[in-house]
């Protein structure tokens, strides 16, 4: 009987020894989150490009077709995975006042077409047409002080051009997209 009692005590001791809990939850995981908004930026250090004195026909006074190479310096970036770019051009327009009685006799607008180069995309525009061209699906890109330009193809006029200053514009619009 004494042996039995001792055996029982030993059994109790053994149970106590085995009752130590086991812990597995000894780590913690923290998630860190943030966002990056899709955006584009473009700037130029050459906001004005002079095409110089356009050639005209000595007899008719019409502006002749001619090609002038010009480049501007741009810095730009888009961080979206699917951005779009639009190039819009407006015709060279006479900056003075057109004499009313002669309005139909002279050209006061000169069209041209050009293709921009130097960006990860190219856009051809013709001011005689829509004057706008778009490219979509452009991936992330960055250019820093990059020469962007190409050939400005002046289109001939059908009337003598008024003498004076002409001004047009080329606008590159970048739109970020995911």
């Amino acid at each position, binding site marked *: 009987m004494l042996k039995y009692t001792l055996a029982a005590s030993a059994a109790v001791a053994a149970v106590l020894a085995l009752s130590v809990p086991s812990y597995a939850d000894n780590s913690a995981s923290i998630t860190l989150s*943030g966002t990056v908004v899709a*955006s584009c930026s473009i700037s130029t250090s050459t906001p004005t490009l002079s095409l110089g004195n356009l050639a005209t026909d000595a007899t008719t006074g019409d502006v002749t077709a001619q090609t002038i190479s010009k480049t501007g310096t741009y810095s730009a970036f888009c961080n979206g995975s699917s951005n779009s770019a639009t190039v819009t051009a407006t015709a060279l327009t006479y900056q003075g006042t057109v004499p009313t009685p002669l309005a139909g006799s002279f050209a006061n607008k000169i069209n041209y077409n050009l293709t921009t180069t130097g960006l990860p995309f190219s856009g051809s525009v013709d001011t005689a047409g829509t004057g706008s061209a778009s490219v979509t699906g452009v991936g992330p890109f960055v250019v820093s002080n990059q020469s962007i330009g190409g050939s400005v193809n002046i289109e001939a006029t059908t009337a003598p051009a008024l003498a004076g200053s002409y001004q047009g514009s080329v606008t590159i619009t970048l739109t970020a997209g995911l």
Partner: protein
Amino acid sequence: MRNQLLTLAAAVLIPGLAFASPVAPATATVTLTGSIGNACHMGDLSSSQISVGTLTNSSDGTLAAISGSPNTTITGSWCNVGSKITISALPMVAQGYSGSPPSGFTKAVNYTATESGWGAPTPSDTSQGTTSGADSGSHSGSADVGTAEANTITVTLSNFTAPVSGSRLVADNNYQGTITVTLTAAS
């Protein structure tokens, strides 16, 4: 007890023996033994997610300064013996951008995660993401604490950087990183 009963019965049935020399009681002492194993328990996170908001400067797309010191706490942790606390940080990576970004861009942001409150020294780990988003290897920070501990653990984030200085971050609505804190009981 049984021996005592036997002694009493003998005294009743055999009166001649009632005043014989008493029998010394038999005793037995049982020693109970037990042990408590080495264990640690990680408590509850005040927040399992830390949002740092917008990561970039809108003007040039580079990494913006992260305001404040993003942090979270873990309450109710304990180790009943000396322990090792380990912290590891994986970079924040753009989850929706597939492939590697072009030159000049990154899809990862690195940072340093530092633990405090669990003895000294305070371990830290800096993620080692590359521009393509991959973590460049196994790494962690750890510290050994010599005694049992029960305390609140604080995890603080700092030193947010791009893998290549000046690189721009690709746009993505979901940049995510992971910090793991582990308590290991001393063996």
